[in-house]
C-alpha cells in the first residue's frame, strides 16, 4: 500500500497502453494510493485483455469476485504481478437478466475453479469452460438454487435433499482398474475431504479430490452483519491461519474508511503474523514427519509445536492468536519484558528445530520417502497460479509481503526463499527456511518497535468496497469487502491459499505408489477449513 514512484510510473504507462489499444472500448482509472489500475470493459473484450495482461505483461490471476448490484452483475478479475507492486482489477458489468460471460480458463488455468465457484454460487455460465460442474454445492442441493445470490435467504436452515448418491465424473476405464476412496472421514484428526485414488494395478495413476464438506457459507452469513461480527468470522473460518486472515479483513476495512493503523500496530501486526507463520510451519513439519512414520522426529516436532502454542498463549492470551486484530490496529500490546520473552522463546524453539532439521537431513530413509514425491513443476505452478510455500518450492518466488507490501513489511528487509525441485523434500526445506526467516524478521522487528498507540483512536465508518490481503502461512489471501454507510457488510469474498493450491494438487498426486499418499498430502499441508469457508 506504500506509494512507490516507480509503481506510479508503471501505473500511468499501463493505463496509457490500455487506452491506446482499446480506445473507446474500455474505461481506465488509476488509484495511486492503492497502486491499482481499474479497467472496465465489455464482456467481449475480456479474453483479449486477459491474454494481454497474462502473456504480454506477465501478471498472475489472484481472484475472481462476483457482485450483484441493482440491475447488473459486476465481475472483478484481480491481477497482480511478480516483481511489480501494483494490481490490475478488470471489471466486467452486464445486465442481470443475462448470465453468460466468456470463460478465461482456457487462457489461464488458474481461473478454472474460480469460475466453477461463481457458476455454483451465483448461477453464472462461463462459455467455453472445459468442465463447468458443481464444486461447492454437493448433491444435497437442488438444481437452480444458488446460495450466494442476493435473493437467497441465508438466515433459515435450507431444506436440503436427503441423498447419498455422488459419483465422480469420468472414471478410468481399463482392465483391472479400481478406485479407492479415502474420506470424507479418514485418519486420526484429519479434516473432512474425499480423495478418489484411481489405480490400474500397483500404482495410483490419478487422484480426484472432492472438497467443500466443510462449507459453512461464511461469505453469505457475513452479509447483513456489522463489522464486529464479521471480524469473528474472518478470524475463525480458518483457525490455523487466523491472524493472517483477520489482518487481511482489517486492512480492507481500513482502506474503505481511510484509516491508517499507527506505526506500532503495523509493526506488531508483522510480529504476530510471523509468529503465526512460525507456529504453522513447525506444525507442518511435524505433519510431514508423522506421514513418514518417523516416530522420534514426530514427537520432537510435536513438542516444538506445543511450545510455540504455549508461547503464543502465555504472551497474547490465545494459543492460536485469536482476538488480536481490530480495524484500525491491534488489541494487545507487548511490554519490554514480554518482548524479551517472545524473542528468546522463538529463538529457543528455533534452535531445537534446527537440530531436528540437521538430523533429518542425514536420515536417508526419511529423504528417500520425500525426494521426487509429489512433484509440481514451475510451469504447472505458474499456470495454476499456485501461491505460498508450494509455489516457492517449485521455483516461483511469489510472496505478497514483497509484491504488495502491507503493514510494516515495506520497512523490514528479508529475502523470499525459493527452491527449485518442487518435490516433497523441496517443500520441507522451504518450510525450514521460512521458519528461520520468520525468526529473523521477529528478531529485527522486536528490537526496534516504534513507540506509540496500538490502534487508531476512532474509526469513522464510510460506505465502500476494498480489497485487503495478506500472505497467510499457506500463501496469498485476498478479502474483498463491501460495506454500507452503517458499517453493515453487503458482500464479502474470500480467496484463500488453500483453495488456490488444492486446485493444483492433482499434479502432485498422479502416478505414485499408494503408500506415498499421506506424504504427498502432508507435504502440501493445506487446510480444508480455509478452502471450503
Amino acid at each position, binding site marked *: 500500500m506504500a506509494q512507490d514512484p516507480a509503481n506510479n510510473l508503471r501505473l500511468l504507462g499501463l493505463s496509457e497502453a490500455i487506452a491506446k489499444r482499446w480506445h473507446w472500448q474500455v474505461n481506465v482509472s488509476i488509484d495511486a494510493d492503492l497502486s491499482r489500475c481499474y479497467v472496465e470493459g465489455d464482456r467481449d473484450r475480456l479474453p483479449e485483455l486477459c491474454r494481454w495482461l497474462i502473456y504480454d505483461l506477465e501478471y498472475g490471476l489472484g481472484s475472481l469476485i462476483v457482485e450483484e448490484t441493482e440491475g447488473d452483475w459486476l465481475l472483478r478479475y484481480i491481477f497482480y504481478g511478480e516483481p511489480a507492486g501494483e494490481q490490475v482489477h478488470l471489471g466486467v458489468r452486464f445486465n442481470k437478466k443475462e448470465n453468460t460471460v466468456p470463460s478465461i480458463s482456457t487462457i489461464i488455468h488458474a481461473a478454472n475453479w474460480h469460475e466453477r465457484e461463481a457458476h455454483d454460487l451465483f448461477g453464472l455460465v462461463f462459455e467455453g469452460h472445459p468442465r463447468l460442474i458443481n464444486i461447492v454445492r454437493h448433491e444435497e442441493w437442488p438444481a437452480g438454487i444458488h446460495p450466494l445470490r442476493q435473493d437467497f435467504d*441465508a438466515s433459515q436452515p435450507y431444506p436440503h435433499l436427503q441423498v447419498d448418491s455422488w459419483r465422480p465424473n469420468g472414471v478410468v476405464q481399463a482392465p483391472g482398474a479400481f478406485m479407492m476412496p479415502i474420506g470424507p472421514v479418514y485418519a486420526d484428526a484429519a479434516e473432512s475431504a474425499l480423495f478418489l485414488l484411481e489405480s490400474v494395478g500397483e500404482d495410483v495413476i490419478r487422484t480426484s479430490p472432492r472438497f467443500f*464438506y466443510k462449507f459453512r*457459507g461464511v461469505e453469505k452469513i457475513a452479509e447483513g452483519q456489522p463489522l464486529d461480527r464479521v471480524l469473528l468470522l474472518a478470524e475463525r473460518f*480458518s*483457525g490455523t491461519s487466523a491472524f493472517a486472515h483477520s489482518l487481511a479483513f482489517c486492512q480492507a476495512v481500513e482502506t474503505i474508511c481511510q484509516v491508517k493503523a499507527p506505526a506500532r500496530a503495523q509493526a506488531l501486526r508483522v510480529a504476530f503474523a510471523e509468529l503465526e507463520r512460525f507456529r504453522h510451519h513447525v506444525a507442518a513439519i511435524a505433519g510431514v514427519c508423522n506421514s513418514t512414520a518417523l516416530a522420534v522426529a514426530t514427537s520432537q516436532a510435536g513438542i516444538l509445536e506445543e511450545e510455540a502454542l504455549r508461547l503464543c*498463549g502465555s504472551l497474547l492470551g490465545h494459543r492460536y492468536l485469536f482476538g488480536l486484530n481490530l480495524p484500525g490496529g491491534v488489541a494487545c500490546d507487548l511490554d519490554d519484558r514480554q518482548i524479551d520473552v517472545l524473542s528468546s522463546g522463538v529463538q529457543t524453539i528455533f534452535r531445537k528445530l534446527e537440530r531436528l532439521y540437521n538430523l533429518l537431513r542425514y536420515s536417508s530413509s526419511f529423504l528417500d520417502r520425500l525426494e521426487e514425491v509429489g512433484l509440481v513443476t514451475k510451469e504447472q505452478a505458474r499456470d495454476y497460479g499456485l501461491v505460498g510455500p508450494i509455489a516457492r518450492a517449485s521455483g516461483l518466488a511469489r510472496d505478497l509481503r514483497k509484491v504488495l507490501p502491507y503493514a510494516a513489511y515495506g520497512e523490514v528487509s528479508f529475502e523470499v526463499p525459493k527452491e527449485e525441485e518442487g518435490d516433497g523434500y523441496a517443500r520441507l526445506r522451504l518450510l525450514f527456511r521460512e521458519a528461520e526467516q520468520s525468526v529473523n524478521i521477529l528478531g529485527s522487528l522486536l528490537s526496534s518497535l516504534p513507540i506509540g498507540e496500538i490502534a487508531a483512536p476512532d474509526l469513522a465508518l464510510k460506505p465502500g468496497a476494498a480489497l485487503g490481503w495478506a500472505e497467510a502461512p499457506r500463501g496469498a489471501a485476498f478479502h474483498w469487502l463491501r460495506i454500507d454507510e452503517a458499517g453493515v457488510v453487503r458482500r464479502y469474498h474470500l480467496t484463500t491459499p488453500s483453495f488456490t493450491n488444492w486446485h493444483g494438487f492433482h499434479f502432485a498426486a498422479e502416478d505414485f505408489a499408494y503408500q506415498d499418499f499421506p506424504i504427498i498430502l502432508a507435504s502440501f499441508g493445506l*487446510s480444508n*477449513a480455509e478452502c471450503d469457508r
Partner: protein
Amino acid sequence: MWEWVWEGIRQGIVTTGYPARAETAAGVSPGFPSGLPRTFTDPEEAETLAACCPSEALVREGRQVIFRDQRCIHCYRCLRRIAPPQEWRWQGNYEWAVSPRPRAELAKKFDKSFRRSLHLRVIDAGACGACLSEIEQLNKPYYNMHRLGFFLTPTPRDADLLLVAGPVTEHMRLPLLKAYEAMPAPKAVLALGACAIYGGVFGSSFASLGGVSSLIPVDILVPGCPPPPLAILHALLALVGRAEPHRCESIASPQGGESHV
C-alpha cells in the same frame, strides 16, 4: 538409526502431570473471565459489560452480570476493549467439561465399560482447524493421552466415543450420522468447542446445523474456542468417571438463551 534413539533419550519426558497434578505451565489455556456473576451498583455498568460480548456469554440480569462458559469464544473483548471493571480477573484453568444430564446418569451409562480404555473417532464436522489441532496435541508428547488409556481409532466400528468438532455443516450431516450408526453400543458423543455446542461464530444457518445435539444425542461437552488439550482430557476423564464434570447443565442453543437443569 542410533542418533534418533539418542535424540529421544536426550529430550527426556515433557508430559504433563495432569490429572495427578494440576498443570501450571503458562499458555496451556486461553482461560475464561472469572469473578462472575457480579453485581454492579449501576445497571448501566452491567449493561456496558454485557453488551461488549459478541456471543452472549455475558448476560445482564438486573444489576448482575452472569457468565455462560458454553458460549464464550475467548475474544477478550470484555478484557481488552472496555475499561476493565475493578477486580476483573482472568482465569487460566481448564477443567470445563459440562454434562448435559445429571451426573448419575452419565456414570450409569459409561463408567463400567469405558474405565480402562476408550477408543475415540474424531469427526470434523466443519471445524476451523484449531479444535482439530488441539486434539492432535493430545497424541503428542506433552499430553500423551495413551498413558491414560485413550486412543484414536480410524474406524467408527471400533469407536466408543465420537469426538465431534465444528458446527455440523449440511454436507457433513450424513457422514456424521453414518459414523454414529456404525458405532457399537454403548456409544458416547463429545461435543468439542463452541461450534459443536451451539454453532459458535457460525451459528445455525442455511449451511450448518448449529451444533451436534440437533442431530445426535451428546453425552459430554467442552466449552472453549478451541478448548485446550487439557480441557479435552478433563472431559474424557469425566466421561469415564475418573474426574468430576465441572457442571451439569443443558446445552446452549444456537438461538441464544439457556435453560438450567
